[in-house]
């Protein structure tokens, strides 16, 4: 009951701000709406027994990636309220296509026979997740560290102004 209430509230936050992302013509507002989506998804993670993931979502996505995007928006727009508009026909076509996509996907997902599984009873403890990261997921962990190193250097190089 309370869970349902919470789900609907968070889902509404997520969806409304996702619609805001798409609908706002000003890119800064899009980015701010994205904050709502990310926060809503983080709340959904709390509902889904993924506390650590929710915290990571907030700290990395909302606190890092989003700020990067806002930064990028500010640095790359000449006048404050840059608006690029696609034509009306394009927009209508895209909206129709994506509504069809959403409907089709929803029908497919709801109608699908998911194999019987076991539900997760409690949130995995931080310690368990950490242990997994250093055992089963050691290889992706290390590969990701190499990736981050390379990306950091590449991004620093590209963003540096040419002297």
């Amino acid at each position, binding site marked *: 009951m309370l869970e349902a209430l919470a789900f609907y509230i968070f889902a509404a936050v997520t969806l409304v701000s996702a619609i805001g992302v798409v609908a706002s013509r000003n890119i800064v507002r899009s980015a701010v709406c994205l904050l709502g989506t990310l926060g809503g998804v983080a709340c959904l993670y709390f509902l889904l027994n993924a506390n650590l993931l929710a*915290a990571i979502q*907030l700290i990395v996505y909302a606190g890092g990636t989003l700020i990067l995007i*806002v930064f990028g928006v500010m640095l790359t727009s000449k006048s404050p*309220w840059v608006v690029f508009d696609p034509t009306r026909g394009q927009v209508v076509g895209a909206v129709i296509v994506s509504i069809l996509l959403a409907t089709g996907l929803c029908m497919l997902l709801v109608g699908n026979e998911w194999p019987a599984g076991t539900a997760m009873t409690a949130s995995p403890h*931080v310690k368990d997740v950490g242990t997994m990261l250093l055992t089963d997921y050691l290889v992706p962990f290390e590969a990701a560290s190499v990736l981050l190193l390379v990306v950091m250097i590449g991004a620093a190089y590209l963003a540096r102004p040419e002297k």
Partner: protein
Amino acid sequence: MSQLSLPWVAKDPAVYQTYRRTAIRNLLAGGIVHVVLALGIFGFFDLGSTAKVTNLKIAISIIGFLAPLAVGLALIAGGLGVLFYKQIGNTLKYGYTAASVFFGGVIGVCLLVWLHSLVFTLSKDMLASPQNGAEVVSLAIFDASLTAREIADYLSANLPRLSNPIVAYVLWPLQFELLRDLLAVGGIVGFVSVIPVFGIWWERKIAGRMQSRLGPMRVGGWHGWAQSPADGVKLLFKEDMIPPDADQALFKLAPYLTFVPPICAMIALPFAGAWVFRDLDVALLFILAMLGIEVVGVILAGWASNNKWSVYGAMREACQMVSYEIPMGMSLLIPVMTAGTLQLTAIADQQGGGFHTWFIFKNIWCFIAFFSYYIASLASCKRAPFDLPESESELVAGFHTEYSGFRWSLFFFGEYVAMFVVSGIAVILFLGGWKSPFPPGFALKTNGTWYVDFVVHVLNGVLFKEGPILFVLKSAFLYYVQLWIRWTLPRIRIDQVLYACVQVLLPLTMVILLGNTLWILGIEHMKIEWLGTIDSLIHKVLVLIGAVLVIGMIWIGYNGYSNRRKLVGSLVIDHLPGS
């Protein structure tokens, strides 16, 4: 401009008298009616009878008895206040009376808070008591697991002094998690609104004393203690201006984005073992995330203002906060590694053995980590010497140049709450949280006499054992240090800020992180003996240093206090109220 027509503006003194008399009459009469009503209901429904305790009477006792009683007493107090306003005003003029009223109020609020926590503990105990079956009944959101009858029985069996059925009726709703949550939210919001008000006044006083001034002295009598509420009222009534070229929606949204995340951080910040809204297992990460989101609001404020200086301020802020988040998080990893958990209550529980078990003295890495964290937290709260984003002299207050009135005050609320939160984290992770500096053996014992018990509980809660008050006091000390630093050090340049982060703090935290890892691996995992010996030696030295620091601090404080007249000067001070 239309003429204001308020009742106290430009009226005949005779009219005031009429107003006053009417007010006194109405208040007193209303109060007495309410009290009588409450007592009538009490008698009519037989609420005081221990024999007839039923669930039905709960609502009656709360709505029909307690609420009118409280309203009635408040009305009577108000009426008396209006009646004796001259006498009260005259009394409050004297410095020491006002001071004692103020401190009495603060202490009263603390006690109330502490009693509040006792009630929660009591309702938890009752749920878990063997009388209610062998298994521990979990807290329920909707369905009650205890009846009022059971509570009354429990009280008469275990706490005969509290066995009045009214107490049972009041305790009954507290077993519901929803109600506790609501109360806790109320508590958090209340606390959050008190911190900045008190903190700003305190900051102005300290700034004044450090510059041999007095700070606010007029409003409220004793040392200008009402300055901040007065400022708040002023800000509320100020004209709220939005620049025409600003992005209206974002301009309005930005202050809330700075103000709400620090409050959300309070959700996971424990004030004591049972004194936390949600005891998350990822509490630390959650709080850090909330402090990190705050910057979005600042950037947006600068951006939406459409003002060059604001954008500069916002950019500096983003730069600084994002960079300092890394050393901040990495310094916090060291106590987390030592404790082996991210749960703040669990971390604090490990430091309960007294002063020497605090993590700051655990080993050399933690000791350094405390200071690196503290510096990084100053930067992430944009406090001096890292207050580049709002530097008045360069950027005309930076990101909030264009803000005024209520929205402007929200930024300050956010900033001061964040300051308290970062201090709180430091206290929990390094300074033993809500645990007393004395080992558990020092806690006073109760002896059954109720007034002795009361004093013992208070002393234990404030000094000898544990409790939210200890936590708040410790946090307040770190908060004070932030103010102290602000009024002592000059602001540094933006390139120096980034240099300090990237080239000094970041390598330092990396080194201590590595050192701590190897330390733990060597001592706890590989069990190298000589390393253990060195560790205990370092631990002792650090405890000694800590003791010396504390004593030195107390001595400096005492010295400053006894020489305060020399420091402040004697020309004005004797002519001011409350000096």
